[in-house]
């Protein structure tokens, strides 16, 4: 039994950390988040050149054939740098396309997404359905000639303004219908909906009789449900890893501050009230990392408890991100509450990530179902 990262994984971690140290400093994140889309072409090219997009996808799909622990290593490090832009969105879209196994899309758009020459995102969330895929019905897919037309509205679509393609979770005759559409297609309207995390922009996307050819209907019914769910599980591993990275940054900042800041002529880190908060940040971060790594490993291995492991990781990391954020601000005192300090970048990202793919309450209910409702 070995819970440690392998040597290649540690090297990967180091290289992501070095990349972020060079190309994704907090000052740079601030500049990028002030732009309309929080997408920076040069930074994106850097990410793409590293081969991190779709690194967990099979080589025949344009990926590197690595595992989800490797993916988690990358996302933890970019989370520690609060990397802005569509890395997570495009990773999710690529994963979903790969999970549908839809031959035409897998051979055409997927390699472009993995290379980074195209950007994708998933139009999935609806306020009433939340993250329960079986209930998506705000975008209707109606048969029209050989293909379909899409009509309706999706919310909280991340990075929609910079995406070249959307994977849309629509409702069709055969239930859930996953279709691939170009963002430039006629009838698509993209409206920014400003959220609290300025480093990852959210949009409302409306579809006003958008034509989709039969070639771009990737999956329907039970198969579509499976593909969407599996892609969300991968997304959850990535989000949990981002949360852990963000907590790690908060831990390092808080401890550093506690070691240098003086009040009453003493280093505040010598006060137990501060020490115990720092210890709690450490405990919560480490437990989150245990849960996140296990979820990544279990999902990679396809263990019997993988679904439960991913939900437990998400519920724990979601709560932990809030708790650690609160403690870190309190340790910093007044400066931690200012715009000038970088804490709020991570604090806001944690909030956004808390919701993404279901919050703690949502996943506790899923865990309860597995434990209480099984036949």
């Amino acid at each position, binding site marked *: *039994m*070995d*819970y*440690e*990262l*392998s040597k290649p*994984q540690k090297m990967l971690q180091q290289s992501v950390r070095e990349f972020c140290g060079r190309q994704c400093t907090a000052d740079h994140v601030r500049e990028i988040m002030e732009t309309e889309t929080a997408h920076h072409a040069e930074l994106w090219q850097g990410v793409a050149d590293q081969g991190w997009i779709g690194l967990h996808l099979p080589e025949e799909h344009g990926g590197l054939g690595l595992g989800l*622990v490797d993916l988690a290593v990358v996302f933890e490090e970019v989370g520690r740098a609060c990397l802005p832009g569509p890395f997570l969105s495009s990773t999710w879209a690529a994963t979903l396309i790969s999970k549908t196994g839809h031959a035409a899309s897998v051979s055409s758009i997927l390699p472009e997404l993995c290379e980074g020459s195209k950007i994708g995102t998933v139009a999935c969330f609806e306020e009433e359905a939340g993250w329960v895929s079986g209930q998506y019905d705000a975008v209707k897919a109606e048969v029209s000639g050989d293909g379909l037309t899409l009509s309706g509205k999706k919310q909280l679509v991340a990075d929609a303004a910079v995406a070249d393609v959307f994977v849309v979770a629509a409702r069709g005759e055969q239930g859930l219908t996953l279709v691939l559409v170009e963002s430039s297609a006629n009838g698509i309207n993209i409206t920014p909906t400003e959220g609290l995390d300025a480093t990852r922009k959210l949009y409302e996307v409306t579809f006003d009789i958008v034509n989709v050819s039969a070639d771009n209907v990737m999956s329907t019914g039970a198969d579509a449900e499976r593909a969407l769910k599996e892609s969300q599980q991968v997304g959850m591993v990535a989000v949990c890893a981002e949360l852990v990275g963000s907590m790690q940054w908060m831990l390092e900042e808080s*401890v550093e501050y*506690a*070691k240098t800041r003086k009040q009453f002529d003493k*280093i505040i*880190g*010598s*006060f*137990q009230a*501060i*020490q*115990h908060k*720092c*210890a*709690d940040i*450490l*405990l919560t971060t*480490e*437990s989150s990392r*245990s*849960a996140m*790594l*296990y979820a990544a*490993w279990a999902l990679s291995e396809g263990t019997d408890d993988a679904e*439960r*492991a991913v939900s*437990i990781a998400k*519920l*724990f990391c979601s709560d932990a991100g809030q708790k650690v954020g609160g403690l870190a601000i309190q340790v910093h005192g007044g400066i931690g509450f200012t715009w000038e300090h970088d804490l709020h970048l991570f604090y806001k990202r944690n909030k956004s990530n808390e919701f993404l793919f279901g919050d703690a*309450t949502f*996943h*506790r*209910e*899923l*865990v*309860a179902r597995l*434990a*209480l*409702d099984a036949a």
Partner: protein
Amino acid sequence: MDLNLNAEEQAFRDDLRAWLKDNLPEHRAVDHESEEYWQHLRDWQRTLFEGGWAGLSWPTEYGGKGVTPLKQSIYLQETVAAGAPEHLGVIGEGLVGPTIIVAGTDEQKTEFLPKILNGDHIWCQGFSEPNAGSDVASLATKAVRDGDDWVVNGQKIWTSFAQGANWCLLLVRTDMEAPKHKGITALLVDMNSPGISIRPLKQMSGQSGFNELFMTDLRVPVKNQLGPTNQGWRIAITALMNERANLGASMYPFFDDAVTSLIELAKTRKRNGKLLAECPIKRQKIAQAIADLEIYRLDSARALSRLERDSTPGPEGSMLKIFWSEMYQRLAQSAMEILGDVSQLEGFDDGAWVYRYLRSKGATIEGGTSEIQRCILAERVLGLPKSY
């Protein structure tokens, strides 16, 4: 990262399971205050010894098996999961033996180690005192040299196993003038010596798992001094590190039982005409208990994996101790909310939840309080300045 057991580890587990199946005693003595109970535990230790399952963590030259920390953890989990009797050697085998191996004379090793393994010697530890709790090093029990003996006077408290123990690892002050950490000596004390008396200490749960020890002109031969005079603090630290490492790994089956039983109760008992398991708020609490338990399992596995690499118990022990002790309290509190009014009755689930609710309050105090553990993490892991 690979969390599967390898073939050798699986074989170890399967052998142990098979052996347990054939060797577990049918009869259980449960009254901790009866002589029958202690005899029962001694018999079990003897059975373990004869079956080759004693001293797993010890080096082979001292009669041990020298197995990896992971196998020790498998052993602890499997024995508890199989419902084996409480392990008599928690203190002797887990804490005193390893300390004698590190600090004892050849005579002491020959004299004591085999008897720990075969169950002849049951050990307790006399560290804490009424005025030396978290600050153990301020202990005041005094020993004065008289010929070939130390003459000991003072009082110890929170001594588990004292009723059944025949030996005690005792910390005493041998230099009144030296700074507190530098005037302590460790003694190996025969509990049948004249001058020792034991008084059970009744806990808020009603049980007496701990004791007070009173020493009046107790004579301990100098040959039973462990380590050099006035260097007993290092002995204490060695013992405490082993205690924390041991405790952390062995608690999982205990909590797993509790959560499993909570789930079963929620699926069968009703409130307001509906099963407890149908109430959305109770479902949230149950799921949180499940998640907590899983995090504890994973944190333990991760600490174990690190121990396999680094081989000495580190500050992970403090992290696990904080987690399980606070989880224990959350679980007990939350379970009673889920189960409702009747859970306060001693007759409900054989009093298991009343017991957990009360007993868990001790968990964040014994073996180093949560506050002390957090200071240890802040200072030794995070590098913050000392606060006391």
